């Protein structure tokens, strides 16, 4: 009897305190995220007047417009180009650097400090300095290498030039995650491989990569989702008059333009629903593909 009522009392107390403690978060998520998400999906089927004034339901008209809008198709291509260039390079370079720094190499913490530096700088400032570096006449890059390349105004090249900035910014971040993952690989694995006379590349391929494949998977998925949402760099680098703008503007850039410059919130919502669909699709593909190469022990 005594035990039973104590148990009941604890259950009731847990229930009460549990809900008191999670209430701010739950309310916040409902108001700030769940309701907005439903509203965005709803508004993608609406013609919205001037900010908030009257939503008129227009069915799939926005989606038809989206389908016929060549700049959206181009933006999807631009975003994918950026992602498929930025993610592999920033991941591979970071992994190689992390493997090097995981050894007892001299100057380890200095290197780490340097690589990580871009992580704490606002992309707005990073974009500003890279735009200056890329300047075709007075920029450091063209003058240093005595070249004459329109890094950010050549429509074929610009999206990759911007991706290079993305790579530069993310190397340190990815590296930190890889270093944390590498800490967990038992040292005797390497010692055994050493005794067997395995070369550095063999060790990398057959021990390091499989052992940290969960971290690798996590980094690739999160970096891909982030890259699909690229905005700051493009917004800061590409002027309205830049001839390469059409070939660089990303989906989120288009979303910003439609929603907050042209003030067409309905169409902006439609674009962001498309982005959500693409990101979910890519994530599902990754989740399926991971079974082939990620080892959880």
């Amino acid at each position, binding site marked *: 009897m005594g035990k039973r009522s104590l148990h009941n009392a604890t259950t009731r107390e*847990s229930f009460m305190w549990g809900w008191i403690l999670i209430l701010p978060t739950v309310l916040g998520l409902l108001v700030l995220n769940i309701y907005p998400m439903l509203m965005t999906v709803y508004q993608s089927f609406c013609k919205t007047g001037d900010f908030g004034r009257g939503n008129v339901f227009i069915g799939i008209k926005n989606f038809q417009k989206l389908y016929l809008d060549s700049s959206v198709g181009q933006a999807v291509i631009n975003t994918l180009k950026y992602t498929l260039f930025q993610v592999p390079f920033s991941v591979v370079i970071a992994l190689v650097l992390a493997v090097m720094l995981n050894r007892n190499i001299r100057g380890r913490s200095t290197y780490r400090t340097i690589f990580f530096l871009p992580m*704490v700088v606002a992309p707005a400032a*990073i974009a500003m300095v890279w735009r200056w570096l890329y*300047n075709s006449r*007075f920029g450091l890059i063209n003058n240093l290498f005595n070249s004459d390349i329109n890094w950010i105004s050549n429509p074929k090249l610009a999206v990759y030039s911007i991706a290079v900035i993305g790579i530069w910014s993310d190397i340190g971040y990815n590296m930190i995650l890889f270093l944390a993952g590498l800490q967990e690989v038992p040292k005797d694995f390497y010692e055994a491989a050493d005794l067997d006379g395995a070369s*550095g590349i063999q060790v990398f391929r057959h021990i390091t990569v499989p052992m940290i494949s969960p971290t690798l998977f996590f980094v690739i998925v999160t970096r891909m989702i982030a890259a699909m949402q690229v905005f700051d760099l493009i917004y*800061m680098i590409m002027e309205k008059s830049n001839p390469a703008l059409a070939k660089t503007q990303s989906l989120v850039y288009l979303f910003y333009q439609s929603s907050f410059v042209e003030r067409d919130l309905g169409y902006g919502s439609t674009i962001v629903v498309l982005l959500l669909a693409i990101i979910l699709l890519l994530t599902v593909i990754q989740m399926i593909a991971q079974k082939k190469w990620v080892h959880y022990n």
Partner: protein
Amino acid sequence: MMKKVRTSSGMMHLVLILFSIAMIVPFLWMFLTSFKTITEATQIDPFVFFPEKWNIDAYVNVSKNMNFLVLYKNTILMIALRIVCAVVTASMAGYAFGRLKFRGSEIAFSLVLFQMMIPSQIFIIPQYQMISKMHMTNTIFALVFPGLVSAFGTFLMRQAYKILPKELEEAARLDGLSIGKTFIQIMAPLTKSCVVALSVFTAVFAYKDLMWPMIVNTGKDSLVLASALAKMQGQYSSHFPELMAASLIACIPMIVLYFVFQKQFIQGIATSGGKL
């Protein structure tokens, strides 16, 4: 064997140094350009690396045009309030999700996971409409609004509470402490390192964010550093020393913080990223 090891470590240093240079050069160029005159900055024959005279005209010019004190103030308030909100709400929810068994907790936690999987742009338009309806554009509250609670922080704090030993908690409960007191007095102080990690993450994230501040706060006195940089780029299109000076002023506080609290920064990112 020894020789092989030595050459390979030489190669490694070569690679690491090359990448280090690539990392530093943009910052160095920002610094050097900010002290040049516009003539020096745009001189190509011969190309000028170091300013002949270190002059601070660019800094004087941008300070006349942008009130950096106000920008710093807005940015710091936004960051500080976001940290407080995230740490308080996420600690509470993290403790409940991590240590209490109660009806409805699983459904509530699925909200947290759901929010973390959805790209944040999907929330922006309605969030803006709410701020606009409340007539709260151009306020600090608008800047903090999307960060009033933190799904990611809740997830992080739940992990932190989960791994704490249960003996302490049981002892406190046997002593007759309520769940609320056990949480605040006994358990919360044990999650200090995770709170630091969450604070670092929140600060860096808020400091770097550009789109939200640009949307809600357009008035000159309610900008933050990032959105002010975006705005000034139009005004100073080819005044490179001024642009670099402003960038540097915007970057310096976070860089200094990073050098002082390097360990916390790196640990903060490693824990917050690695356990997601």
